[in-house]
């Protein structure tokens, strides 16, 4: 009885197909082109399972055999950021993009804010370089044991946890009108990371260094307040609040640096 019901349901859904319109690119230098695929529908499928189906059977909607689509993925639970792409015009993670919730044809494009490697694979290295630039870490290495650092209040830890959800996926950079090939803007995520590490009791000991980095070319000041980042962020990080908070920190810091005496931190 139950087996029959499953069989019936599978037959009903097997007839259904999902149309995908995918922007492809064979190499970093070659020009992009579109290819359409009709993928057999399965219940609860997401964009990644559809891409896997195309990989299994790389035949486009014209019935021609083609090369499988290249894309990146890792965690499949929206915490790594690797599978980010532009789906139906908006950047997001393809693992949590459920086919049932998307209008067809479902268009997939690479996040062109970053250099395209192939098809949907982009090189997000610029973000990792920026993390180094703003010193987004807590430096504790040394030649001897530094002992325990200051304690972080629990409520502050809970607040900081929200900022730490950033997975450097690049969606906010893709959404930002000021991150493009004409500017050096490092993007909203990086500014929020400075807030996270400057809020950390041990990290705060190098607060001035991170603010200095944020006040360089391509830093904080290149934000144009379109506030797309906070709309786009898949982790709901309060990016615009972070930017405004860093704006205030930079105002106070630059004032102190110019008019103050010779202090560095505080």
């Amino acid at each position, binding site marked *: 009885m139950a087996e029959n019901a499953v069989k019936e349901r599978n037959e009903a859904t097997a007839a259904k197909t999902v149309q995908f319109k995918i922007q492809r690119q064979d190499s970093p230098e070659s020009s992009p082109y579109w290819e359409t695929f009709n993928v057999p529908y399965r219940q609860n499928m997401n964009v990644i399972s559809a891409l896997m189906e195309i990989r299994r059977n790389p035949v486009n909607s014209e019935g021609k055999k083609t090369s499988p689509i290249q894309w990146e993925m890792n965690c499949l639970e929206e915490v790594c950021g690797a599978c980010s792409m532009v789906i139906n015009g908006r950047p997001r993670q393809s693992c949590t993009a459920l086919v049932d919730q998307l209008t067809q044809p479902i268009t997939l494009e690479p996040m062109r804010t970053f250099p395209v490697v192939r098809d949907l694979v982009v090189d997000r290295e610029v973000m990792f370089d920026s993390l180094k630039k703003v010193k987004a870490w807590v430096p504790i290495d040394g030649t001897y044991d530094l002992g325990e650092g200051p304690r972080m209040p629990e409520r502050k830890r809970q607040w900081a946890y929200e900022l730490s959800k950033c997975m450097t996926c690049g969606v906010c950079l893709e959404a930002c009108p000021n991150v493009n090939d*004409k500017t050096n803007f490092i993007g909203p995520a990086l500014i929020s990371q400075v807030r996270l590490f400057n809020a950390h009791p041990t990290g705060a000991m190098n607060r001035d260094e991170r603010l200095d980095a944020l006040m360089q070319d391509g830093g904080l*000041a290149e934000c*144009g307040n379109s506030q*797309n980042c906070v*709309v786009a962020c898949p982790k709901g990080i309060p990016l615009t*609040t972070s930017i405004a908070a*860093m*704006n205030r920190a930079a105002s106070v810091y630059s004032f102190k640096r110019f008019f103050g005496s010779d202090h560095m931190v505080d």
Partner: protein
Amino acid sequence: MSACLSVLRGVKDFMRDSDFGLRRLHSLLGILPIGLFLTQHLIINHFATQGVEAFNRASDFMGNLPFVLWLEWIVIYIPLMFHAFFGLYIAFTAKPNTSRYGTYRNWMFFLQRITGVFLVIFIAWHIWQTRVQKAFGAEVDFDMMADIVANPLMLAFYVVGIVSATFHLANGFWSFLVTWGITQSPRSQRISTFVMMGLFLVLSVIGIRAIFAFV
């Protein structure tokens, strides 16, 4: 030629190195003195609604202030030119995407840049028609403006120019508060949005009433 290039490169390096400071300066100058000057300008213009004589008295007073040339250059021309040219650079290095994100703030971002570019053209034309003509010997008075806006196309150009300027100031004031870290929380930013909408309406009414007084 190569000396010229190396000077240009030096200027570019300087601009890049002091990008943060220049952008903060751009934000500050938009409010002080330019925003303050615009407000004062529209209020003085409003004398036109009280008749020819009232306007001419006010415009005579403003045009004959002591050190007027110094005031003009320091309070108006130099800050305005920096704000305009650096603003053009900011506007043309953005890649607006209102079709992807049709949110209120994203539209404001786009309109801020559109009105900014338009204002560079409008203000250049406005200065040519008034201040430069004065330098050539023309009399700046009610009749000068009445002659200009007698042409309905010019009147439309001025109306769009005035509304662009009041919008650019009000919305620029909103982002000034964010840029300097005064409004941080979403709530304070939302409230300042409404306050700036009010500022936009009040300044627009003053400006529009004044320009129609010349018709």
